[in-house]
Every structure is written in C-alpha cells, then in structure tokens.
C-alpha cells in the first residue's frame, strides 16, 4: 500500500453524474490547481490505475460496468467517491434507475462531499488519503 503514496495514477469513473464533479476533477489537474505536480496523473485505462475517482450516483446500466472495471483493476486499488451523489446519492435516492451509492457496490476508501466539491477539497481529500496510507 505504501508504494501507492508516491505517484498516484487515477482513473476517472463517471457513473450517472451531472458532469460537474468530472469537470472539477479535470480542473484540479489544470494549471490553477495542478495536481499533476504531485505525480497524480489521469490515465485512460483501468489497468494502469491506482485509484478510481468515482462520481455520480450509479444507474443500473453503469453498475454492471463498474463491477467489471473494478475486477479488471490491478490490486491494491483504492476507490474515492467524489461529490455528494457518489457519497450518498442525495436527491436521486428515490429514482427508479439507481443501483445504489458506490459503497454499496465496491469498497470505498475516501469520501469527498460537496456539490460539486471544490478542487481545494479534492486536494485535501487526496492528501488525507495519502496520509492514511502512510500510516498503514
């Protein structure tokens, strides 16, 4: 697990999200906040990923894909739920097409609440995650 703390490669999984957290994640990587300076890199394939950044509540169709993606990920693989929907589903709780929040389907290691969380909040979430990993 400690090896993960050096340079985290993240895979971005958008379930049924409204796009806002997704944009803020990308925003955190661009020059203003520049998460890349910590070695955090957005990767295109789940097979390269150390961390899955999950956004949005999960629709039935996406739930199947999420499980398959999680199986394909090299372990150890951490899951971070970004945004209120990913943490608790908020107003979409009663929808007919929702399979549940992330922690009902895959193990979630960190929650970053907010609608959407500010990039600063995401950075803080990542820092907390790294600290927790270092402790073991």
């Amino acid at each position, binding site marked *: 697990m400690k090896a993960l703390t050096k340079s985290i490669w993240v895979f971005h999984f958008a379930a049924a999200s409204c796009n806002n957290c997704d944009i803020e994640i990308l925003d955190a990587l661009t020059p203003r906040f520049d998460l890349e300076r910590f070695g955090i890199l957005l990767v295109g394939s789940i097979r390269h990923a150390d961390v899955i950044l999950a956004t949005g509540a999960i*629709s*039935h*169709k996406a739930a*199947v894909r999420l499980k398959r993606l999680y199986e394909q990920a090299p372990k150890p693989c951490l899951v971070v739920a970004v945004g209120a929907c990913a943490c608790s589903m908020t107003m979409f709780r009663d929808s*007919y*097409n929702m399979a549940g929040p992330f922690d009902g389907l895959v193990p979630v290691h960190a929650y970053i609440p907010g609608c959407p969380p500010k990039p600063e909040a995401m950075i803080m979430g990542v820092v907390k995650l790294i600290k927790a990993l270092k402790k073991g």
Partner: protein
Amino acid sequence: MAEEILAKIKEKFSWQILNIFEKSPRRAYIDLKPENIKEIVEFIFRRLRARFVIVSAVDTRNAIEILYHFSFDIEGKIITLRTKIDKQNPEIESVTPIIKGAEWIEREIYELLGVRFKNHPNLKRLLLAEDWPEGKYPLRRD
C-alpha cells in the same frame, strides 16, 4: 406572420382539428385525433418548414396524451399538436419516417410509457438497462 401560420393550418385541416387553444401570441395548442397526427406533422414539418422540437407524453390516468412541439423560429412561435390515445392499447403512427430527429424520443416514450409507435424503423430501448422488466413503465401513474 404568426397568425398566418395558424390560419394556414386551420384552412388545410379545418375538419380534422378538434380545438385550438391560443395561450398567448407565441404559444398555441391544437387538439387532434390520433389518426390525423401523421399528415398534419408532415404538413407542418415539410411544407411550413417548422423546426421539430420534441415529443412529450403525459399519462393522464385515463389516457395517454402525446404532444408534438414545433417551433417557428422566425416568428418565435411554438405550436403544439396534442392527441389522446387509449391507455389500454397505446398505439400511434410513428413520425420518424418523416422526421429523423424523432427517432430517439419515440424510443424513449416507448420504454418509459409503453407507447407503441407503428412503423418506427428501430423501436427498441434507448435508456433503460437490458434487464429492466418488460411491461413496467416508470412514467406511468398506476
């Protein structure tokens, strides 16, 4: 200009139109029988060159109402064709053969309200998962 459009429709389809309701100068609703929808849609789309906006469907408990919204952009007017179909046997002629842009929305209404569109080229599910139970329509009020 805006009045002309309604006048043209009235003149051509005077005996098919059940009722015209002008909510405001920019919004008009025309009630029709389901069997006349296709030819009037064709007239409005092909001859009057109105932009197809969308179809909406409403479950009114005893019938399913289908609304075809068309926008006349130069006049800034929206004309809505409205028809009621039987809830026990919800079936209506598809307008996709006339308007390509209507393919998705008819598929959506098919899966969410269970309306069968006759002669639709590709009537299958659009949004819901493959394992969604048959005969369960989320937007119906039962």
